[in-house]
Structures are given as structure tokens and as C-alpha cells.
């Protein structure tokens, strides 16, 4: 791919994210340097930003083509979204993406918000079953997204025993997190016919 500013080979592929807008830049080394310096000096001018007031400017991450190609293929084990898809849409696929792509998202998020640690409110958790305390984070519940996918796959392969096992796993997690349910409507049906 050619640099969008000149005829040289584009080696930097930059994704800009501005309040939901996604823009891609493909630049040679020289133009990438000029571009990145511009955005940095623009930030440097801003006293508010230096004092931690957050960023108004675009969010920028630069990688070499090889790094980016590799990173683009990385996929979330829960929802299956690749980093490439996220870069294109500017929207993540599921809550687990914040864990799976944490290393890649960290600079993006720090750039948008001028911070990388939540200091606001914490959620009220539904009362868990007696004795068990639900954690603050919802990582465990989010694994249900991946489990549902493997259950569907097991059913597709007619591996009903496996499907039943996964289903029980899902139920165990949901019972902990949604004790008063009217079971989550997304949970599996009563189960495949026993052979």
C-alpha cells in the first residue's frame, strides 16, 4: 500500500478515534513522523491536558505494518471480534474485549480520557445466593457469551453430551448472578433429546 501523502510505501497504519468517528491513515515513515509530531505538539500546547484535564484531540496509535497485521488477527475468545473489526467499526464486541485487548486499548483509552483508572461509582450487585459474595467485576458472567458459542458448536456437531455439560456450566454461573431470574432467556433450551 502506498502512503496517502506521497508515493513511498506506507509503513504506518494509524487509527484515529474521535468521539465515535473512525478514520484510518496510511503513511510512509516520514509522513507518519510529521503527522504524529503534529498531534503531539498540538497536545503540548494545551495546558489543561498537561494538568490531566483529558484529551480533546484525536486518539492515535501507530504500529508498523507487521505488528498491525498480527494484531489485527487477534480475536476475542468470547464474542469472536478481531482487533481489525474493532479498528474498522470503532465499536467493541463484548465486555471481555476490555480484558482480551487490554494492552492495545490502554493507550487508546488513556489518550481519549487522559486517565486509565475508573474512580467513579461501582454497581449495586444483585443479592447472590446465601453465603456467596459476587465480585465487583463481571468477568465470570461474561464468559457465558463464549460458553453459549461452544454449546451451539457442540450441538452443531451433535455432541450432545458436551452441549449438556456446557449448558450446566452456563446455568451454574447464571444461578449465581441472576438468582431471582425468570431464567435468562438466552440460556439453552431444556436440552437435546437423550439418546
Amino acid at each position: 500500500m502506498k502512503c496517502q501523502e506521497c508515493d513511498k510505501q506506507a509503513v504506518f497504519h494509524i487509527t484515529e478515534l474521535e468521539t465515535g468517528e473512525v478514520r484510518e491513515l496510511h503513511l510512509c515513515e516520514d509522513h507518519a513522523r510529521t503527522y504524529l509530531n503534529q498531534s503531539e505538539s498540538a497536545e503540548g500546547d494545551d495546558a489543561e491536558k498537561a494538568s490531566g484535564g483529558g484529551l480533546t484531540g484525536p486518539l492515535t496509535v501507530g504500529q508498523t505494518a507487521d505488528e498491525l497485521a498480527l494484531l489485527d488477527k487477534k480475536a476475542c475468545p468470547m464474542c469472536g471480534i478481531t482487533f481489525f473489526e474493532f479498528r474498522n467499526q470503532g465499536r467493541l464486541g463484548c465486555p471481555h474485549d476490555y480484558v482480551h485487548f487490554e494492552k492495545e486499548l490502554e493507550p487508546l483509552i488513556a489518550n481519549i480520557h487522559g486517565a486509565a483508572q475508573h474512580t467513579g461509582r461501582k454497581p449495586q450487585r444483585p443479592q447472590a445466593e446465601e453465603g456467596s459474595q459476587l465480585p465487583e467485576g463481571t468477568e465470570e458472567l461474561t464468559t457465558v457469551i463464549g460458553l453459549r458459542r461452544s454449546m451451539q458448536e457442540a450441538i452443531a456437531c451433535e455432541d450432545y453430551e458436551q452441549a449438556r455439560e456446557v449448558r450446566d456450566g452456563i446455568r451454574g454461573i447464571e444461578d449465581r448472578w441472576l438468582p431471582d431470574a425468570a431464567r435468562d432467556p438466552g440460556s439453552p433450551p431444556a436440552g437435546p433429546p437423550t439418546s
Partner: protein
Amino acid sequence: MKLDTLADAVGEWLRGTGPESDIVMSSRVRLARNVAQYPFVSRMSDQDRGDVERFLRERISSSSVGKQLDYIDVGRLEEIDRQFLVERQLISREHAEAQGARGVAIDGLEQVSLMINEEDHLRIQCMHSGLDLRGAWEQIRGVDDQIGSAVPYAYHPRWGYLTACPTNVGTGIRVSVMLHLPALVITRQIDKVFRSLHKISLAVRGLYGEGSQAMGDFYQISNQTTLGKSEEELVEQVGDVVPVLIDYERRAREFLVRETQQNVHDQVSRAYGILRTAQTITAEETMQLLSRVRMGVLLGLIGDVKIADINSLLIRTQPAHLQKLRGVELDTKDRNIERARYLRRHFEGGPSGSPN
């Protein structure tokens, strides 16, 4: 809920009451939330979409706040009804134009609205007339707590509330005020004001939010960042700048009266004249003229019009409202004629006659 009954009411944000309501139209807080056990909206299957809609609808309606809300199945609404809700700021344009299972729960006062399957699974909004960010924040916090005790919101100790777009992660809060700044526009100071707002991480948008142009000198100011500060700090960040903007606008209005009284009086009188006599008029021109008349009334240059009436005309002359009030669907040309007729009838109705 019958949408047609809403058309007769003005809705919270145009009531024209509350502190500083000569300049601050409304104060709004919204929270972005997702259910932990489902993919985000853009990655959901149709099945997921329906499941999330049902899950949230059931949990909202069984909460005590939910009992005071009416649920509207947005996916089944006609286009004109969706547009109508957008004009009232009860749903976003994106939500109106999306596909598949989605809905909104709103209260009778039109202060609270809960959008299901917008960009995030749940968008809670609370809107108050005039400058009342604190009141809006306290109300929404209560709603969020109630729903959050029945819905496992996706949350991470480091990243906070997890949202589909990283620009909302953390608190998921967007705090905004809608300001009417005609004098800053006329005195050409508005760009300078906006540049300084950008420097302190505040965003400026036109009346109908993202991407739309400011119509009729109405601007929405909101926080740009959502992570690393508490909700209260972000409410303050926006709240702190509002008195400054109010002061600028008041000074610009005083300047106009002092230095260019004849000119301004002429401008607002002409605007008033067109609204009273036009035979066909677009929504944009109507907004622009109503904005000028609104300023004229506040400056004491037009004596026989009420601010509440101007506010009500601002919404009732919008395309979907106009058609709802008329009871028929109209194309653009006929809408412009009907709009002019509606305005003439309103102003003929007497000095401060009701637009009904």
C-alpha cells in the same frame, strides 16, 4: 401510551421553567450501561437482540421506577412516530434509525427515558428544565441504582462500566446543558467561546446532538471524557462553565441593546413579522426566527409573546409534530405550507394565545 397525547404536551425540556431558563433550556444527564452476559449491540445476533430487549424490559418494569414508566416498542413504530420521539429528545436519531428489537421507557413528565438497544444495551437519560444538573444527576442516580440492583451491569474494577465505544467507558456519563446563545452568535463571539470550551475538554453540538448543525442558536455543551473522574466531578465540570457562559451571553445581550438597539429591534421585529405572515416556511427558518423572537421577548423588545409559547412553537413546528397535530402525513412542500398556517393561526390567536 398514546403518542398522540404527547403531542399536546410540551415535554420537560421546553417547559421554559427552572433556574436561568432565559438562557439554559434544559439540563440532561445520561448513563451508558450494558448487560454483562451478552455481546455489545453491534455484535449481537437477532436472537441476542430480542433476548436483551426482553430481559431489560422485564427487569425495568418490575423495578419500582419501572412502574411509573410507559414502555414503547420502538421497533414496531411507524417512521413518523420514531421521528416524533427524536424531536422530543426521548430517543436518539441513531435509535430511531436502527433495526431490530429495541424500545424506550419514559415517564409521564418526560424527564426520564430508558433506551434499550441503542449503541449500548441501556441508555438512561434524565432531563430537567433550566439549569438543574444536580437535580438531574440525583434523579438518574436513583434510577441507575434501582435498575442496577436487578441487572448485572458489565463492570471492570479498572475500566469501570464497560461500553461498546471506548469513548464512554468508566462512568458512562454524559452531562449536558442546552443553551440559547443568540447574542453571542450575533456579536460573532461564539467561535471564540467554543474554542475555549474545547480546551477544557467540553464538547459543543447543535440542538439535535451528534453531527447536526446548530439550529436557531441552540447549543449543547457536554463533557468529553468519562474515565478517571467521578460522576460528581464530571457534573461539576460542566456545571462550572455554565454560569460563565450565561454571563457572556447576558453581557452580549446588554451590549446589543446598548450599542445597537435600533438594529436589534429591527431584526427581531422583522423575524416576528415573517412568522406572523409567511405563507410557506421551512423548519430551519422557523427555528432561526423563533430564536430571534425569543431573544426579543427576553430583551423586552417584543411585549406580547410568552417565552413558554415560543418554546412550544419550537417543537410543534418540527416535521413529525406538525403532522401529528394535523393528523395527516404531509410531504415537505405541504409541511412548509402547514407550518406557516400553524404559525399564523397561533399569532392571530391573540397576544399570548395558546397554540392549541
